[in-house]
Every structure is written in C-alpha cells, then in structure tokens.
C-alpha cells in the first residue's frame, strides 16, 4: 500500500534558515548587506574597487568575495583598508548562506555598517541562494547582450537594482541601452537601473548615493 505524505517544505530550507538568522543579525545591528551577482567579467570587482575608494574611511565596510578558485579578487580589494575576505568555493558555482556565516567568523558585526558580498560570476545559480542580504544587485555590462534579462529572468526578477556597467564602451559595441532597460523592466517592473563606467567614473556618484539610501530595515 502506498501512502502519500504531504511535505511542503522548501528544498533549500536549511539555507533559508541560516539566511534568516543572518538577516536578523544584520537588521539588529543596522548593517546594510548587498549581494552582487553577474556573469564572469561584468566588472563586479572593478565596481567594488571604485566603491571602496569612494567610501568615507569612517564608514565601516567589509567585503566577502566569492570565487571558484584563487584569491585574486581579495588581493585587488585589500589595499583600500577595509576588511576583505575571499571565499573560495572549490568548484561550487554560487555562495550559500553557510559560506557567509563562516566567512564572517572572527569579524565583529557590531563594528560594521555595510557588508558587500561579491558572488561567484554566474547569472543562474547564485539566484537560488538567499544570503541574508538586504538586496540583490545584478551587474550587466554592455559587452554582453541586451537580451540577458530575458535569457536569465530569475536574477533580474529578484534584483532590486541593475547596474549597467562599462558604458564607456558603448561607442564600440552594438549594445542598445534602451532595449536593455526595456527588457529588464519587462521581467521586473520595479527594478532600479544605474549606468556606470569604472574606467571613466561615470555614474559612480549615483551608485554611492544608491548605497547610502539603502538604510537597513528595522
């Protein structure tokens, strides 16, 4: 005899449980936690370099940066004087909440205002994993296709902000900015959009202002 037992629990419930704990912990300390997601080479690390260079030294910022191999990104971000830690996933294509929990070990959260997480370069897998962040940010560069929001709708639905990066290259690539915006809004009518260039500095002031507006929910 076969008995069907209803279960109705999320597959990633263990990840979500840890993420919920992290989110509570960030909220309680009024920490803004942002999770940056993009395909490899869209400029997440460059954007973080420019970001760290612009933060007021009195702002208490920390960075967790994820990669499958190497600590190259942490090495690039370390010179700015903020605590940076590399999470090497050894093959895994995404960060999960437990990696964040471990990555934070030894840091005093009471001494933190902003936690920036650079996810593994991948537009698909990181989408499924809640890291306890306040917002997911998707970075799309103009050397990719403007149809990325349609091809990878998951992350564009979940992201609060799309950063269109490398806009200094627009004269040299067939990327249609308006179409990219339209595609993103088709997937997520509420998504905010910023245009940046880490080479020329265009849009970076707006980006810093956007971060400053993300006051942690009480």
């Amino acid at each position: 005899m076969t008995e069907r037992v209803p279960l109705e629990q999320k597959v990633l419930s263990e990840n979500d449980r840890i993420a919920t704990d992290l989110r509570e912990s960030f909220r309680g300390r009024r920490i803004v936690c942002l999770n940056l997601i993009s395909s490899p080479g869209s400029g997440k690390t460059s954007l973080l370099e420019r970001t760290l260079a612009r933060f007021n030294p009195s702002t208490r910022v920390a960075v967790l940066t994820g990669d499958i191999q190497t600590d190259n990104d942490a090495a690039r971000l370390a010179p700015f004087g903020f605590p940076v830690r590399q999470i090497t996933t050894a093959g895994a294509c995404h960060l999960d909440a437990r990696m964040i929990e471990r990555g934070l070990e030894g840091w005093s959260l009471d001494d933190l205002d902003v936690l920036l997480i650079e996810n593994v370069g991948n537009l698909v897998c990181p989408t499924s994993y809640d890291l306890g962040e306040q917002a997911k940010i998707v970075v799309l560069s103009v050397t990719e296709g403007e149809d990325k929001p349609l091809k990878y709708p998951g992350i564009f639905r979940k992201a609060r902000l799309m950063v269109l990066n490398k806009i200094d290259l627009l004269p040299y690539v067939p990327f249609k900015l308006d179409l990219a915006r339209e595609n993103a809004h088709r997937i997520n009518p509420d998504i905010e959009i910023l245009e940046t260039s880490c080479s020329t500095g265009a849009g970076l002031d707006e980006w810093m202002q956007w971060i400053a507006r993300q006051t942690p929910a009480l």
Partner: protein
Amino acid sequence: MHELSIATAILDQAREQWDLRPGERLSKIGLRLGGFAGVDVNSLTFCFEALAKDTEFASVTLEIEHTAQDELQMAFLEFDE
C-alpha cells in the same frame, strides 16, 4: 551547475522523513519547480539519479510538477508499507 547541491538537499530532506518511518520504503518524491527557480530539470534529474544510485533510494522516482514563479518546493513523499 548548482543542481548537485539541490539534489543533495532533496535527498537529505527525504532521508529525514524516511528515518521517521522504519520499515517503509520511499518510492516517490514530489517536487514543485517554478520556471524562474533557475534549476535545469535534466541536470537535476541526472544529479538526483547519480546520488541515489547504490543507496536505499536507488529506485525512488522524482516526480516534478512545473509551476510558475520561482518556487523550489518538496511537495510530498510516497511510502510503500
């Protein structure tokens, strides 16, 4: 690519329930998978079969109901007594 960790989570949760039902055989796992969940069905099925092989769950069927939105939910388990 993350289908392997998802398949692992599915089997872990199924095992938790199976452990509570001594003497019964798990025959089916019902999963609801949203179109925006970012999970590739073929890859998930492949990973599931690879992990279940040579275990007590080798003959378990993974039944996937496709839905909208981004849900990734264990819907039900079927046990044979």
